[in-house]
C-alpha cells in the first residue's frame, strides 16, 4: 500500500454523519509536513504504510518459495537463488515486518490516545526511529539484492562467516534496524511511565498498552544482544576476527546462545502486541469487561520476562549440555502456561457478553484458535524428546508460522480493521471484510497444517529439492498459500477503496469503550479537544452510554 496522501480522508464531502473536521490529517498536507512531523499519529501511519509494503514483499517471496516447492526437482530457480529467496523472505518478514508491525503502527498511534497524552515522551526520537527504520530497511534490502546473502535469517556460524557471499551489508542493515527498535522501545516505556493523564492509574491502563509496554521491555533488553552478536559475525565475515570460529578455538554454539537470547524473546516481540490487540478486540466486540484484568497483565509481564530464559530450546540437538536442555525445557513450559491463561481468559470474557460478528472478531477467533495450536505445538517441541525428531523440520516451520502468521498476522489485520476508522475516519465494507477474514483463516490452515505433517514425515527445512514422497503435502500447502495471497489482495483492494470512498465512520463506530475512542476519529492534532478524565475502568459496559452505537 502506498503512503496515504494527507488530504484524502477529510476533503470529501460528507455522505452521512459529520465529516471529521480539523483532524491530524489536515494540519499541513504537503509531503514535507509529513516527513518532518513529530506527531505520533502521522509517524504511526507512515510506519503502517512502510510495514505493509514490506509485508507485501515478504509475501511475494513466500509465494515464490511455495511455487518452487511444487515439484521435488528444481523447476523455476536454481539452488542458490532458492537459498537467497528464503533468506530474503525470513529477513524481510522478521525484521522489516513482524518486529515493527504492531508496536510501531498501532502502538505508536494508540498508545498516547489510550494514555490520555498529547504525544509520546520523545516525539523527535520517534521520528528518528522511523528514519532509522527506513535507512536500515534500505541497507538490508540493498545488501540482500546486491550481495545475495544465503545464510537464512539465523546467520549460523561458521556458515555465515565462511560463505563466499557478502553478508556484511545485511548485518549492518539489521544493526541499524535494531537501533530503530530500541529507540521505539525506550520511548514507549518512558511514555507509559510518565505521560499518563490524571486518573489513569497502573490498574486502569488498557491491556493493549500493557502488552506494548511488555514488548518494549523485550525490545530494549534483547535487541542490543542481537546487535553485538551480529556485529561479531560481521567482523568475522569481513575481517576474520574469528570469535565463533571453531578453527581458532571459538564456539559456534556460543553464537547460538547469544543469537537465540535475542531471537527467542523476539518471537514475543511479535506475538505480545498481538495478544494486546486481541484483549482489546474481545472486549470491544463482546461488549464486556475482560474476565480477569490481573491474569492478563500478569501473564503479559510473565511472558516478557520468562520469555528471556527459554532460548536454549532451539539447541536441544546442537551439542548443548543435558542439564541446559532440562532447564530450558522447564522454563519453556512456564512461558506456555502464560499463553494458556490468556487463551482461557479471552474465552471466558465472552460469557454473558453481547457478541457482534465483524471482520475484526473473525480475526480474533482465528487468532485464538491458531495461537492455541501454535502454542501447543511449541509445548510439544519443548518436551525435548520429540524435538529430537522435529528440530529443523517443517514441523518447526509450521509451528512458528502458526504463531507469527496465524496469530501475529491475524492480530495485525484485526487491529487494522478495528482501528481503520480511528485512523482515517472511514469504514471499510463489513461484508467483504468478514469474507476475506474467513478466507484468510482457511487459507492459512490449508497452507500450514500440511507442513506439520511434512515435519512428522521428516522433511527438513530449507530444502530446495526433496524426496518425492513429500510432494502431495507440498502441493496442498502451495494451494493454501495461493488462497492466502488472494485473500490479502482482496483486503488491499477494499481498504484502499475505503480510504477515499468508505462511509464516514463517526467518532466511535464500534460502540467501544476503549479509551482511544473517547476522542474524535480521526483525532485532532493534539489528540483531544479536551483531555478525558478516566473516571471509569477501560471497557466497562455495565451502564448505557448516550451517543454510542451510532
Amino acid at each position, binding site marked *: 500500500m502506498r503512503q496515504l496522501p494527507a488530504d484524502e480522508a477529510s476533503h470529501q464531502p460528507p455522505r452521512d454523519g459529520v465529516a471529521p473536521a480539523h483532524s491530524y490529517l489536515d494540519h499541513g498536507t504537503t509531503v514535507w509536513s509529513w516527513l518532518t512531523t513529530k506527531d505520533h499519529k502521522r509517524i504511526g501511519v507512515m510506519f503502517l504504510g512502510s510495514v505493509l509494503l514490506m509485508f507485501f514483499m515478504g509475501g511475494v517471496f513466500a509465494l515464490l518459495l511455495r511455487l518452487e516447492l511444487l515439484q521435488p526437482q528444481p523447476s523455476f530457480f536454481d539452488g542458490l537463488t532458492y537459498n537467497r529467496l528464503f533468506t530474503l523472505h525470513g529477513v524481510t518478514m522478521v525484521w522489516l515486518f513482524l518486529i515493527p508491525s504492531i508496536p510501531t503502527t498501532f502502538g505508536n498511534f494508540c498508545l498516547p490516545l489510550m494514555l490520555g497524552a498529547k504525544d509520546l515522551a520523545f516525539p523527535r526520537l520517534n521520528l528518528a526511529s522511523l528514519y532509522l527504520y527506513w535507512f536500515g530497511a534500505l541497507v538490508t534490502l540493498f545488501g540482500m539484492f546486491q550481495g545475495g546473502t544465503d545464510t537464512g535469517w539465523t546467520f549460523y556460524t561458521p556458515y555465515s562467516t565462511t560463505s563466499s557471499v557478502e553478508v556484511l551489508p545485511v548485518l549492518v542493515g539489521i544493526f541499524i534496524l535494531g537501533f530503530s527498535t530500541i529507540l521505539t522501545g525506550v520511548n514507549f*516505556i518512558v511514555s507509559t*511511565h510518565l505521560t499518563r493523564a490524571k486518573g489513569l492509574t497502573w490498574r486502569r491502563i488498557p491491556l493493549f498498552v500493557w502488552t506494548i509496554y511488555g514488548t518494549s*521491555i523485550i525490545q530494549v*533488553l534483547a535487541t542490543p*544482544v542481537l546487535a553485538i552478536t551480529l556485529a561479531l559475525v560481521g567482523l568475522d565475515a569481513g575481517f576474520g576476527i574469528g570469535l565463533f570460529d*571453531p*578453527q*581458532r*578455538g*571459538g*564456539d559456534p*554454539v*556460543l553464537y547460538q*546462545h*547469544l543469537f537465540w*537470547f535475542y531471537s527467542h524473546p523476539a518471537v514475543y516481540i511479535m506475538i505480545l502486541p498481538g495478544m494486546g490487540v486481541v484483549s482489546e478486540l474481545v472486549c470491544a466486540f463482546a461488549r464486556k469487561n475482560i474476565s480477569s484484568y490481573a491474569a492478563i497483565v500478569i501473564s503479559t509481564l510473565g511472558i516478557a520476562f520468562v520469555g*528471556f*530464559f527459554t532460548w*536454549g530450546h532451539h539447541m536441544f540437538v546442537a*551439542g*548443548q*549440555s*543435558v*542439564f*541446559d536442555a532440562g*532447564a*530450558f525445557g522447564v522454563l519453556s513450559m512456564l512461558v506456555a502456561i502464560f499463553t494458556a491463561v490468556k487463551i482461557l481468559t479471552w474465552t471466558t470474557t465472552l460469557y454473558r457478553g453481547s457478541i457482534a460478528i465483524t471482520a475484526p472478531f473473525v480475526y480474533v477467533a482465528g487468532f485464538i484458535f491458531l495461537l492455541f495450536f501454535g502454542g501447543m505445538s511449541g509445548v510439544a517441541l519443548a518436551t525435548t524428546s520429540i524435538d529430537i525428531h522435529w528440530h529443523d523440520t517443517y514441523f518447526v516451520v509450521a509451528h512458528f508460522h502458526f504463531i507469527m502468521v496465524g496469530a501475529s498476522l491475524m492480530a495485525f489485520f484485526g487491529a487494522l480493521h478495528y482501528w481503520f476508522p480511528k485512523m482515517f475516519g472511514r469504514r471499510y465494507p463489513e461484508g467483504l471484510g468478514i469474507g476475506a477474514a474467513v478466507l484468510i483463516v482457511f487459507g492459512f490452515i490449508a497452507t500450514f497444517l500440511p507442513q506439520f505433517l511434512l515435519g512428522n514425515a521428516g522433511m527438513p527445512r530449507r530444502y530446495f529439492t526433496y524426496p518425492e514422497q513429500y510432494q502431495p503435502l507440498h502441493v496442498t500447502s502451495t494451494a493454501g498459500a495461493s488462497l492466502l495471497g488472494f485473500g490479502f489482495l482482496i483486503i488491499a483492494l477494499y481498504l484502499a477503496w475505503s480510504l477515499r470512498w468508505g462511509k464516514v465512520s463517526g467518532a466511535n463506530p464500534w460502540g467501544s469503550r476503549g479509551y482511544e475512542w473517547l476522542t474524535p476519529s480521526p483525532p485532532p492534532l493534539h489528540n483531544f479537544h479536551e483531555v478525558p478524565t478516566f473516571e471509569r475502568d477501560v471497557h466497562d459496559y455495565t451502564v448505557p452510554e448516550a451517543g454510542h452505537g451510532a
Partner: protein
Amino acid sequence: MLKYVLIWVALIGLTVTTFLLSRVPTGDWSIAIALAIAAAKATLIVLFFMELAKHRGASALALGTSLVFIAVVLTLALFDVGLRFEPTRPPGPLVQTLKVGQ
C-alpha cells in the same frame, strides 16, 4: 562537594587495592576478589555520580533487570559449556594449538 571528593578518594583507593592484590597470589579467588572490588566501585559511581540514589525506583529496576539478565545468560551458558559431552567443549579434540610463524 566534599561528598564527591570523598567518593573519588574511595574509588582511587579501591583501584590501588585491586592492583596490589593482583600481585599477591590468591589463586582461584583472584577473579572473585577483583570482581567484588570492581562491583563496589561501580556501585559507588552508579549511586552517587550517576545519582541513582536520588532517582525513581523504576530506573533502578531497569538497570537491575539488565544486570540480572546478563547474570542468567552467563550462568546458563557456563552450565552448558561446563556440562557438555566432553569432546564437544571448546576447543574440542580436533583443534589444539595455534601454529604461528615459521
